[in-house]
């Protein structure tokens, strides 16, 4: 799996993401500066990591979404190839129009920096094949604007089409407002695009892949992607 990690000014999670991609895929990802016009040839997975791109000026991810490299990311997505956005990356994908809706200020206004429980809603996607459907995983979050909002019609579409891949729940998987950390509509933590090839999620699975850090629940997302690409090209892992 050849991964390209996009770096905007103010992004700060690119090295955690690169480390995880390296550990899980066995391959060093390409680090792509936002001013680049093209992605490296043969890029399988584009990753937009977390941080505070452009200082969250104007709106989170608003300026990064209009950066030169995003044309290449858009083309990659239009061709049906995979894009993963984490936290600020999710915000950037929404601002870029690659995912619907918007991430607004956490309902309780506090920046949340702690582990959360999310339920993996389905396992039949490249992003979630490393998990069981309904499995609850513990992953870190660190965000002030993770409150997913979309109009009622779009939310109905997302739910109806099975495009909500991750949802904030209690540790046993039950939907409970108390466990919806940021007040997101329907406790939505992560969604995919219409074609299922672009995923955005607020939590940071890349920070839970090593036993030494106490939890490896995030590993399944990346391991599943590696398997997805290995299945597509058995000799080209």
């Amino acid at each position: 799996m050849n991964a390209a990690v996009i770096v905007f000014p103010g992004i700060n999670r690119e090295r955690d993401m690169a480390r995880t991609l390296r550990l899980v895929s066995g391959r060093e990802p390409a680090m792509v500066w936002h001013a680049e016009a093209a992605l490296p040839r043969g890029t399988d997975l584009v990753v937009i990591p977390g941080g505070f791109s452009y200082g969250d000026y104007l709106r989170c991810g608003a300026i990064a979404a209009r950066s030169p490299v995003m044309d290449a990311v858009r083309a990659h997505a239009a061709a049906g190839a995979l894009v993963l956005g984490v936290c600020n990356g999710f915000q950037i994908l929404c601002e870029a129009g690659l995912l619907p809706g918007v991430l607004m200020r956490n309902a309780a206004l506090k920046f949340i920096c702690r582990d959360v429980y999310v339920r993996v809603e389905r396992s039949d996607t490249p992003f979630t094949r490393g998990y069981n459907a309904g499995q609850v995983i513990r992953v870190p979050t660190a965000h002030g604007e993770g409150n997913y909002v979309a109009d009622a019609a779009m939310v109905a579409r997302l739910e109806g089409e099975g495009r909500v891949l991750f949802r904030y729940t209690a540790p046993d998987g039950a939907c409970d407002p108390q466990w919806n950390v940021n007040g997101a509509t329907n406790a939505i933590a992560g969604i995919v695009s219409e074609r299922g090839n672009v995923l955005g999620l607020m939590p940071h699975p890349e920070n839970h892949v090593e036993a030494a850090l106490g939890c490896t629940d995030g590993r399944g997302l990346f391991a599943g992607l590696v398997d997805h690409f290995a299945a597509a090209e058995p000799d080209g892992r």
Partner: protein
Amino acid sequence: MKARVTVTLKSGILDPQGKAIEGALKSLGVAGVLSVRQGKVFDIELAGADPARAEAVLNAAAEKLLANMVIENYRIEMGG
């Protein structure tokens, strides 16, 4: 040529920051405030003097960047 673009949240969009400001005003003893919603103001200076052209530029600026059209409205005031 000067213009001002004001960006506000669409009605129905939750505004927790506005609510926090409301609460703070109440705590400060500023009575009679029923609600607060927070928006943004952009003061823009444009090249040229053609108002129609200026308005087109400002609409583009607002729709492409200054406002997130999913959740925000904008209005333009020329001059000032």
